[in-house]
């Protein structure tokens, strides 16, 4: 089977700096990492490949330096890495990104093997939108399985897949048709460490680099700034809350007494809240 994993190179949020004067994010010198959620997608794909055979291709769209993340993905043992890079993609929002990636996935399918599953992380840590995965699914008309915590079974003959999906209040077990798109939830597996041979091969590997034309991206109006209806109006650091937290001493109290004491504190602080809540409850 052929699994394509879409990854994104993001600034390491643990080391990100906001410029003290201009309040803008200082990207220079901040190390980049593979979006942590994407690592679960890579590992899920590798496990399916190990079980069913086939290939894993990682795909990213970004500046040439995004090659570092692809090379790292290769050290985990993926078979192939494709970098989609073109000045025309600069300034892409999630709509434009999902367009460019979907076209590249089509091209990957034509160039190598037909694609059975597209994986992404559940969201990125820099944009946090969780829109690109579903966007790709929609554009490629793939079954869409989001927030997946595990792949239970793949039936290659029957072209079906069963996954576990975390939903509010429980876990859904979903059966769907292939090809599909899966966005993986965090904490569902642990990325492996490639052997020394894999690491050496990764260091030597040729990263497949496509510009818009090579990737078969035809409608340039859907790319980059032109294809991005999202406009960032302002970036700012939220000011700290004026309210201070209060620590309530509950030493030696029974659970009932703790609840009463906590409620008293709340009513003290928000004298009207009891009335408001009662009114709301009565509709």
């Amino acid at each position, binding site marked *: 089977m052929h699994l394509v994993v879409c990854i994104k190179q993001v600034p390491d949020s643990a080391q990100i*700096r906001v*410029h*003290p004067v201009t309040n803008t994010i200082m990207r*220079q*010198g901040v190390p980049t*990492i593979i979006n942590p959620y994407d690592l679960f997608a890579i590992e899920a794909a590798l496990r399916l490949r190990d079980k069913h055979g086939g290939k894993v291709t990682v795909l990213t769209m970004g500046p040439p330096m995004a090659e570092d993340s692809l090379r790292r993905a290769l050290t985990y043992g993926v078979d192939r890495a494709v970098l989609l890079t073109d000045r025309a993609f600069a300034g892409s929002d999630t709509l434009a990104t999902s367009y460019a990636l979907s076209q590249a996935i089509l091209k990957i399918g034509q160039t190598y093997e037909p694609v059975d599953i597209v994986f992404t992380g559940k969201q990125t840590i820099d944009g946090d939108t969780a829109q690109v995965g579903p966007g790709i699914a929609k554009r490629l008309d793939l079954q869409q399985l989001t927030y997946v915590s595990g792949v239970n079974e793949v039936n290659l003959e029957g072209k079906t897949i069963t996954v576990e999906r975390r939903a509010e209040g429980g876990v859904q077990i979903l059966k769907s048709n292939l090809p599909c798109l899966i966005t993986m939830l965090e904490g569902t597996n642990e990325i492996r*460490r*490639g*052997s020394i041979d894999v690491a050496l091969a990764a260091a030597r590997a040729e990263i497949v680099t496509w510009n818009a034309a090579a990737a078969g991206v035809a409608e340039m109006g859907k790319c980059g700034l032109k294809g991005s209806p999202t406009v960032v109006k302002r970036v700012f650091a939220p000011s700290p809350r004026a309210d201070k937290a209060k620590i309530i001493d509950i030493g030696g109290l029974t659970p009932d007494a703790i609840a009463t004491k906590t409620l008293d504190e709340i009513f003290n602080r928000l004298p009207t809240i009891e009335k408001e809540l009662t009114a709301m409850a009565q509709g």
Partner: protein
Amino acid sequence: MPAEKFDVIVVGAGPAGNSCAYTLAKRGLKVLQIERGEYPGSKNVQGAIMYANMLEKIIPDFRDDAPLERHLIEQRLWYMDDSSYTGVHYRSDDFNEEAPNRYTIIRAQFDKWFSKKVQEAGALLILETTVTDLCFSGGKVIGVKTDRAGGTILADVVVMAEGVNGVLGTKAGLRPRPKPDTVALAVKEMHFLPSDVIESRFNISGDEGVVIEAAGTITRGMAGTGFLYTNKESISIGIGCLVSDFALTGKAPYELLEDFKKHPAVAPLIAGAEVKEYAAHLIPEGGYNAVPQLFGDGWVIVGDAGQFVNAVHREGSNLAMTTGRIAAEAIFQIKSRKDKFSAENLSLYQKMLEQSFVMKDLKKYKRLPDFMHGARDRLFGSYPELVSKAAQNWFRVDGKDKKSKEKEIVRSFVKARGVRGLASDAWKLARSWR
């Protein structure tokens, strides 16, 4: 799959490892470089000042694209007590030359740049991989094992550029573990300020930079120094002392740094800055006598792992780059005459080092670490106070005649240390300086 074989394996991607791997790869050798960090520079800490001459010998046109902060036009040496400093400053417009001599750098960026050059030169780099063992055959090093699954990687010669704390050489019994009195523990912080504020505080403009090196009571009687370097939009400030002295006094490095930052001469320079990074690192400061055996059958040691730091002149990365380059040149010579990488042949590396400034400088100061350590309570305690009081007495105009002032000053020194003691310290200092 049979184990793969390289001409050279370089362990570490700091200045020493990068210089060595670059020089070898440029000459067509098959080089594998192994780095344990997430990216080259992620584990590396330095003040940091980079000396251009030594990098020029490796990458002559480095100024075209290396990430450099400021070129230094002013050096301030401060001898400090708790309220004052007595200083020597040297500033010259001559340092505003076309190809400046010293730059401040930020290592995480610089090392990444350097590593890119190494890879462009043709060396293979693998990251997030720790070399755990050297492999021997008949007493000769023939390759390495790593913490990744899989077998040995073979090489004709292994270059240990693993830094001050490298355990590889120690584990293999080739390099003694550095002793606490031969390594300093330094801590530093990065304080962010707008470039125009830095420029007005230090009386500089454009890419000009200032460096302050400080010693005195700031290290509370322990052998060590403090520093303050100007970057483009930040100030690096740090302090360090011998590990053995920290152990003796029980003081914590961060306490020294907190006090140093509060010193009335330092505080205004960093006022209003935002601390965005802090780091700590060991610095090999044992000098010539602490340099281990540097070569053997199939191996050489370069950089901090070989104790190549000139503590007096605050030089380290340049010695690392030079030892890396010289090791590469020696290896290349042996390789070109198709000779074996025996200890005898690799002694060429040591011979070439002896002829370079590296060994000459270390030899010059070989007695200094002992002197500094022995006289630490005076050099970093009573003397800076005496010097400061003397200067204050001298400059304060209070109706006292100058001759009496001179007498008071001389008397204060004699009272504190005695004529013999003073003479002995002066003699020891002079001797260890030669």
